[in-house]
């Protein structure tokens, strides 16, 4: 716990030193939801009914700002670079797990981003006439739980993508393909309810829905109790799978790893 707090303090200090960068990252994260909201706003619904009403769309994208910020990770890029350049060597001899530092770095930067994001979200809520969802306390609790699980699953998968650098000279194309699938199946680009049925059905079997869309679906209050429980169970399964995959890739990768001096 002490090591985690120490890493957290170091990461937060580093992030606070370059606040301008963090603000720009926040704006970059806001750009896609805002663009989507503007498009939905401009869409005058024809006679066919939309699965989501305008207030629900606003609610979806405003919550997406926060959920999307916390369900994000940049570790894979830096991890694959460090593996390629031999810079993870120090981590192999440190007394704390490599994952601990990455998690602390991730959380500290996200906390700072949330601080900068909050006034932007308030402004957007005012512009787009956001209305607060009326959910029962149990559903809010479930939202919180699925939110945390989503963030952890996404983080672990991102780490796994970075660890591919132990075997691939350039894993950037793999990461980009993952990003494309994530954009479609996670609901980051468009709510899954608005997509063709075949894509919605495929998304049930892929981890992407459980890294973003599921918490947002709870906010929209579109899921039955059975669907909620089902979603939560599948999330836990994906959490176990992604953690096991991380452990496997890390242990195999470190055995294969070589750098000058090793």
């Amino acid at each position, binding site marked *: 716990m002490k090591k985690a707090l120490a890493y957290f303090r170091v990461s937060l200090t580093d992030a606070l030193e*370059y606040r*301008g*960068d*963090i*603000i*720009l*990252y926040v*704006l*970059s994260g806001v*750009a*896609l939801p805002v*663009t989507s909201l*503007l*498009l*939905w*706003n*401009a*869409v*005058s*619904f*024809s006679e*066919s009914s*939309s699965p989501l009403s305008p207030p629900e769309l606003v609610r979806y994208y405003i919550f997406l700002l926060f959920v999307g910020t916390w369900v994000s990770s940049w570790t894979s890029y830096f991890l694959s670079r460090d593996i390629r350049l031999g810079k993870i060597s120090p981590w192999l001899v440190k007394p704390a797990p490599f994952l601990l530092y990455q998690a602390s770095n991730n959380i500290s930067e996200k906390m700072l981003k949330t601080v900068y994001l909050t006034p932007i979200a308030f402004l957007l809520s005012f512009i787009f006439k956001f209305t607060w969802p009326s959910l029962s306390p149990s559903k809010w609790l479930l939202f919180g739980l699925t939110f945390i699980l989503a963030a952890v699953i996404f983080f672990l998968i991102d780490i796994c993508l970075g660890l591919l650098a132990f075997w691939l000279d*350039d894993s950037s*194309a793999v990461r*980009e*393909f993952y990003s*494309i699938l994530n*954009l*479609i199946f996670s609901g980051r*680009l*468009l709510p899954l309810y*608005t*997509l063709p049925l075949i894509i919605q059905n495929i998304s049930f079997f892929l981890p992407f829905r459980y890294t973003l869309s599921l918490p947002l679906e709870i906010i929209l209050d579109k899921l039955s109790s059975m669907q909620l429980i089902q979603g939560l169970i599948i999330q836990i399964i994906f959490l176990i799978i992604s953690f096991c995959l991380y452990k496997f890739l890390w242990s195999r990768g470190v055995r294969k790893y070589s750098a000058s001096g090793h």
Partner: protein
Amino acid sequence: MEYRANFILWLLVEIAFVAVQVGMVSVYFNFTDNIAGWTKPQVFLLIGIFRVIEGIFHMFFFQNLLNFPENISTGNMDLFFTRPVNSLFLSSSRYHSLDEFGTFLVGIALVWYSLIQLQFSFSLLLLFELFVLFFFGLLTLYSIILIFSSLSFFFTRMTALHSVYDVITKALRIPINIITKDSFIGNSLLFPLLIVATLPSQILLGYVTPIFITLEIIGSLAIFMVAHKFFYFALRHYSSASS
């Protein structure tokens, strides 16, 4: 072409990204037949025009401009300023990234498809018009990013420059008048973004009179002049690692 597999892989990635955007727009049109007065083929035309411009920009300028912060902090900028070649030209076009060719290719395909859907008759005049609009749209995009990249001469760290580019290009993929609501103030404030892809599309579609081509050209050249002046102004604040 030494890394052919990587080139082909990135070609496919770029094509996939554009396909996702086209798919996204198609979803919106499942619920409506127009977005702020733009029909589906018209929006595809705008996306195609933007992708052609973005493809060329990525191939020749993107990597160079976004490397400004790193080159400045490492002192590598010296390499561009001590050669008997125009500094701006060399620093912004030194390296090329031909694996971004996929974006350009898909953009051309999308423009061609949209023009057929909109029942345009292909002629030399149309091709010339397209060439002019692409050129000045590209010049505007280059100028906008050059201005932001030049800010690296003033700030210690600008690793988030990529995020600035991200925000700008996300806005450019949709008709800007969705944001400005065609208001004079909105159009004036976002004028540089307007003339990259939205105004060229409107000119081609006949939403505005052909005289607006003049506005496109003058606006683009004016923004380039501002970017040019700002770059050399910012350069005066550069002190390399060795001097």
